[in-house]
């Protein structure tokens, strides 16, 4: 309780609360602009946080992270263009409901569901992160290496698509992380004679490039495609009805919120699983419930044609991922998704290292982050209700032709401010091009980001563990000396083997079906 009080005491400074509010507002606006998302918002705001104190900067980031997904639901409902990828399913029923004259009700469901999911995940963060961090303090080099391996394996195992491309992405990230002085000998590696690379590839410009510049290049491509197609801007429906949910609707949606929040929280804790998996799982599960209980009844639309549950399910699930994705980051130092990887950048700028030691070295900051997620989600409810009409109007007046150079400039100038060096601009531009090209080649970015974050730790712990064991690799699977490491390695193996097992099972099923048909 003392720690929670410490978190609240830090957060309740009016200036800190002010920055949390700025983050919420900025997140709502950025999230509601189609093509922009929480990654880009972080890429823009991380460099801006250089000049802020740690409490201000981190409160801003928490607000930003919490409200981006809510912002994404606004254009999804109003014009069927998801503001963020996590609102892609909200667009189906949300827009159908808006077209039938219930835009206010659809937005109200989206906001309330998001707040419900967000608050539940903040509670999960509050309950799970501190005990996990306390447990992780027992970890030595051996366990930390195995933990890094588990993080990488979970991302690769949950990717879907080509395993080879996932592995290429991970190995590329690990290789880039070796640039700079060797931690074993202090000798430079892969520095190409560039002094600025001796301490490794600068992390913040690298992230700004991979997320911000890559997204700008995607936007530029989209603008050219739209122009060639002669796409006309969509007409926005008007909000004529009330945004507030009545008691009957609240009671009806409660089971959906509970189920989807639970799904989102579990998915959020697993590194690499991400919001998309949560919204699809939640949507699929609730569709069966809807078809069983409501479909076909008078006044009830078909699933996908304006069902309230079709908005509540993905919105509760995607916001339940937000704070829970911080559980592995704050407790173990492993980012739960790409945004929490960017959160590492924000912490590093402030001279902090995420992981169990954060609770020892900076308890005020660690607990402030945790309670800030709770407070941000609670504040988000009235703020979203008050501003949703203004934001939805503002977004459709914003010319994308001006947006593209603005984001580029914020990202590149932000990269410059990392070390006040032109080299950082070069890194951001190069990372942006690499990000764009690899995306076009179908190389997933999640393993690359995680490998960049964990690369140095993995190598360092591997080297130290092998030095202790005299080069004996069995130390990682020693059931007596290092049972935690063995469990983590088994977990990593399970994550890697699960997709292979599923593929083999499907192949056998297909063969059996073909035989039956023959």
């Amino acid at each position, binding site marked *: 309780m003392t720690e929670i009080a410490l978190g609240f005491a830090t957060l309740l400074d009016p200036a800190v609360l002010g920055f949390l509010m700025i983050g919420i507002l900025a997140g709502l606006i950025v999230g509601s602009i189609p093509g922009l998302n929480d990654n880009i918002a972080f890429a823009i705001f991380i460099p*801006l946080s250089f*000049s802020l104190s740690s409490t201000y900067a981190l409160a801003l980031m928490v607000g930003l992270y919490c409200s981006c997904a809510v912002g994404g639901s606004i254009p999804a409902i109003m014009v069927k263009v998801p503001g963020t990828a996590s609102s892609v399913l909200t667009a189906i029923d949300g827009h159908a409901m808006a077209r039938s004259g219930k835009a206010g009700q659809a937005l109200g469901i989206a906001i309330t569901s998001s707040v419900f999911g967000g608050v539940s995940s903040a509670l999960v963060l509050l309950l799970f992160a501190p005990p996990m961090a306390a447990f992780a303090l027992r970890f030595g080099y051996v366990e930390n290496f195995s933990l890094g391996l588990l993080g990488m394996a979970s991302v690769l195992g949950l990717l879907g698509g080509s395993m080879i491309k996932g592995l290429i992405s991970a190995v590329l990230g690990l290789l880039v992380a070796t640039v700079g002085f060797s931690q074993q000998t202090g000798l430079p590696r892969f520095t190409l004679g560039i002094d600025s690379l001796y301490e490794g590839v600068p992390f913040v410009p690298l992230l700004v490039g991979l997320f911000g510049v890559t997204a700008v290049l995607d936007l530029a*491509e989209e603008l*050219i495609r739209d122009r060639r197609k002669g796409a006309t801007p969509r007409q926005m429906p008007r909000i004529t009805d009330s945004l507030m949910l009545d008691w009957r609707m609240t009671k009806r949606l409660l089971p959906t919120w509970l189920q989807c929040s639970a799904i989102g929280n579990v998915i959020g804790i697993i590194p690499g699983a991400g919001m998309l998996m949560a919204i699809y799982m939640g949507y699929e599960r609730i569709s069966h419930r809807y078809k069983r209980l409501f479909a076909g009844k008078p006044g009830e639309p078909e699933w996908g044609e304006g069902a309230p549950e079709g908005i509540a399910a993905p919105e509760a699930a995607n916001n339940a991922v937000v704070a829970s994705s911080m559980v592995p980051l704050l407790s173990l130092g492993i980012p739960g998704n790409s945004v929490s990887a960017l959160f590492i950048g924000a912490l590093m700028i402030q001279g902090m290292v995420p992981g169990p030691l954060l609770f020892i070295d900076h308890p005020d900051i660690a607990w402030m982050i945790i309670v800030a997620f709770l407070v941000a989600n609670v504040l988000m409810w009235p703020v979203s209700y008050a501003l949703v009409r203004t934001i939805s109007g503002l977004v459709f007046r914003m010319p994308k032709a001006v947006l593209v*150079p603005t984001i*580029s*400039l914020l990202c590149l100038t932000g990269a410059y*401010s990392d070390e006040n060096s032109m080299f950082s601009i070069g890194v951001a531009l190069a990372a942006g091009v690499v990000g764009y090209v690899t995306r076009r080649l179908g190389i997933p970015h999640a393993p690359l980001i995680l490998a960049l974050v964990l690369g140095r730790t993995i190598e360092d712990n591997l080297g130290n563990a092998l030095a202790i064991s005299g080069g004996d690799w069995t130390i990682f699977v020693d059931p007596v000396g290092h049972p935690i490491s063995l469990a983590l390695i088994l977990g990593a193996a399970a994550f890697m083997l699960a997709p292979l097992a599923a593929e083999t099972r499907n192949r056998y099923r297909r063969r059996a079906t073909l035989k039956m048909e023959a």
Partner: protein
Amino acid sequence: MRVLKTIDFWSGLAFAAIGFSACATALGFDSRSSTYPATLAAALGFLGLALVVKAWRSAAAQTPSAEGCRVILEGPALEIGVWVLWALALWAGLGYVGPTFAACLALILRHVEDRRLRLHVAQAAGVALGVFAIFYLIFNVPLPELDVVRDLLD
């Protein structure tokens, strides 16, 4: 050869080349610093080759269309080109605001359909001055600005 038209084939070859050349470089480091990066680089090389083999076996043509290439050239490639020129101008000591205004104006004019020049000049100036104000005046980032402008603001 159908496989030569697949993107995976060429990207696999590129990753193999990067991996094996990085491996050769890593083997030149001292023995304690080389094992880990050399192993990773070799793994990247073999994964690149695995991608080539996979492309060979599936051999579904994925070559981007001429239209797709034009879109990339007119959109992302132009965008990067403009910002590289901007970075070179900053590096050459031409100041921040001038090159930034020019870069923004070029990109805005590229993406808009109408030709309301005065409006777009104002938009470009607004973006350039707005970002300059945020970083230089509010956050005290020492942007590479001309001495004349710096003296004026100081």
